[in-house]
C-alpha cells in the first residue's frame, strides 16, 4: 500500500470515529435531558444503566484474555506486616485488660478528676485498689497526673485506646449474636 493510500485510509477512520463521537455525544445529551425533565422512570433507568455499565466495566477489567484462554483475576490487597513494639503494646493491653481500669478510663474520658472524685464515682473500687489501678494506667501512658493540682487526666493514647475498645466491644457483640449456640 502506498503512503497516499494509507493517508486516505486514516482519513476514513477519522471520519468514522468522528461519527461515533457525535453519536455518543447525542446519547449523552439525551440521558442528561431525561434527568433534567424530571422524568423519574427514565432517570432511574439512566442511573441503573450507568451502574450496570460500571459493574460490567469492573467485570471486564477482571477478565483477562491470555494466550491460554480466559481467566479471571482478582486483585488481592496486600496485608501490611504488623510493625509494633510487642512489649510496649503488651503493656497497654495489660493495662486495658481489667474491668475496673476500663471503668476508670470511661469516667476520665468525660474530664479530669481528683482522686476523691473518682472514689465517689466508683464506690465499688476501694481507695487502695483505685490508686494501684491509676498507677498501672499511668505507667502504660493512658493516664497522666498533674503535679500541682493532682487531677488525673486521660491522655491522647488513653482516649484512642478507649475508642478501640469501644469498637471491639461492638464487634464482639455483633459476632457474638451471629454465633449464638442453640
Amino acid at each position, binding site marked *: 500500500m502506498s503512503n497516499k493510500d494509507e493517508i486516505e485510509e486514516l482519513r476514513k477512520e477519522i471520519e468514522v470515529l468522528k461519527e461515533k463521537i457525535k453519536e455518543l455525544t447525542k446519547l449523552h445529551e439525551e440521558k442528561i435531558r431525561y434527568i433534567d425533565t424530571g422524568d423519574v422512570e427514565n432517570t432511574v433507568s439512566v442511573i441503573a444503566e450507568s451502574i450496570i455499565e460500571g459493574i460490567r466495566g469492573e467485570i471486564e477489567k477482571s477478565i483477562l484474555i491470555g494466550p491460554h484462554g480466559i481467566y479471571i483475576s482478582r486483585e488481592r490487597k496486600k496485608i501490611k506486616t504488623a510493625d509494633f513494639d510487642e512489649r510496649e503494646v503488651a503493656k497497654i493491653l495489660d493495662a486495658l485488660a481489667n474491668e475496673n481500669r476500663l471503668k476508670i478510663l470511661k469516667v476520665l474520658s468525660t474530664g479530669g478528676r481528683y482522686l476523691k472524685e473518682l472514689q465517689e464515682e466508683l464506690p465499688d473500687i476501694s481507695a487502695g485498689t483505685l490508686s494501684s489501678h491509676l498507677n498501672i494506667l499511668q505507667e502504660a501512658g493512658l493516664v*497522666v497526673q*498533674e*503535679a*500541682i493540682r493532682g487531677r488525673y*487526666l*486521660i*491522655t*491522647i493514647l488513653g*482516649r*484512642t485506646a478507649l475508642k478501640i475498645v469501644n469498637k471491639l466491644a461492638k464487634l464482639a457483640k455483633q459476632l457474638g449474636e451471629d454465633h449464638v449456640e442453640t
Partner: protein
Amino acid sequence: MWKLDKEVYRLNENKVFLDHPKCRLTVGENSILAKVFFNDHHVGYVVQGYVEFFVDTILETSEGAVGKPVRKTGHQTFIYLSKQPPEMNLSPTGDKEFWAKAYSLCEKFFKQNEYRLHKGHIVAFPVGDKFEILVLKNNKLVYISLSKIFVSKMDHGVLLENKRDARRVITSAGEKTILMEMKF
C-alpha cells in the same frame, strides 16, 4: 547591668517562691543564697539547697492530655528573678565558694539571655552549659528545657517535644487541636 551582692545568706525558713496552678517552687530551710541586682534594683537570688520544683507541662486537648509534668526535687542550684523578689528570713554566712559559683552562673545566664525587668518570675536551672528556664507572668507560662518547649495561656497552649526519632508539636486552642510529628 547585673551585679551579685558580696554577701551570702542562709535561709532560716522554708520558703515558697512560686505558687501557681501550673507551677510551684519551694526552697528548704538552710539553703544558701546570694542577692542579684540589675541596674541597682534587687531582682532576685541565686539559690542552692533543697528544692521542690513542679511544672505541669501538660496540654489538655479535645483529644486527650499530652505531655508530662516536670518534677525536680533534691539539692539544686538555680537563679530566681522577679521585679519584686520575696522577702525572707536570712542570716549572713561567709561562703566564698558558693559566691564564686553563683557569680559564674549569673555571668553565663546574662550572657545567654537578654533580661528586662518585668512583673513576672523567671526561674533558671543550669543544665550543662545551658539553662532550663521557666517564665511566669499572670496566666502566661513558658517553660523551655533541652527536650521540650511548653507555652500556656488559659486554655491555649503549645507543646513542642523532641522524641527519640521525631519532633512532636501539639497546639491546642479550646476545642481545636493540631498534632504534627516530624520524623528526623
